């Protein structure tokens, strides 16, 4: 494969859209790296995650090494409280299945979606939903009071 851009314009749009959707759904920041992974993947991912620290406390980095045939999902300490390691492992399993079939873009998109779905909603949203649930019946039918 000759050196050059890995993805077409449509694929880039699709991947950027997937990242944006995951960020809007969870409120966390997502970043995806596709390329060479020199050395230890975990060390590499943590190093890159440190470079994303300016984004906030909740950052998720997805590192995909097509040449090394590995994928590493790394969550910052803040993001780890909302996205469990088990959910990451399940996502990685799904992603590797797609990658094994040659579907790099599809695997990443599905992985981001799974990560976003597995992320616990923000506590404020919980409280808001709970408060709505408590005041629901009386508030929705005021005439009954």
């Amino acid at each position, binding site marked *: *494969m*000759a*050196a*050059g*851009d*890995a*993805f*077409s*314009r*449509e*694929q*880039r749009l699709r*991947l*950027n859209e*997937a*990242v944006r959707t995951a*960020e809007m759904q969870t409120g966390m*920041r*997502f*970043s995806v*790296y596709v*390329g*060479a*992974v*020199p*050395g*230890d*993947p*975990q060390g590499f*991912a*943590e190093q*890159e*995650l*440190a*470079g*994303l620290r*300016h*984004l906030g406390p909740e950052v998720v980095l997805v590192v995909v090494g*097509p*040449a*090394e*045939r*590995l994928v*590493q*999902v*790394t*969550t910052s*300490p803040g993001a*780890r409280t909302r996205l*469990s*390691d088990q959910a*990451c*492992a399940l*996502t*990685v399993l799904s992603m*590797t299945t797609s*990658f*094994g079939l*040659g579907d790099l873009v599809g695997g*990443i998109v599905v992985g981001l979606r799974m990560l976003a779905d597995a992320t616990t909603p923000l506590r404020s949203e919980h409280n808001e939903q709970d408060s709505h649930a408590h005041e629901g019946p009386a508030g929705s039918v005021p005439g009954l009071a």
Partner: protein
Amino acid sequence: MALLAIPFLAASPAYADGPPNVNIDGVHKPLGTVNIILIFVLIPLALTAILMLIFLRPSTAPGAQRYRPGRGWDAKPAWFGIESRTELNRPALPPSPEGPLVGDVLEPGAVANPDPGRAGSDRRAPSPTGVGGARGSW
């Protein structure tokens, strides 16, 4: 179903006197050299060429390089979302005993290690930074 049967029923009288390649006397007509070449050589070759053009032509999408498991990957590293800042000042990595990695297009030079004391096999130890996640390969 009845409509589908109409062409066959309509065509059947044409075979009343025998198949097309058979004379009334029952003697087979020779196809002829030109017809033989056309039917058994040129038409199959043309079909093969069309199928090869359809399935073996290079991708027309600009910049697209299809990933095939097991093959090399030397495309440029790509970021989606926000790019890590360490990418700009990556520190030099120790040379791998297996030689350069396929697809390693990162510039040699080197980089800000967030934890200078952590190197080599220490990186494989569980992260003391509290980060989580998972890893897999295919």
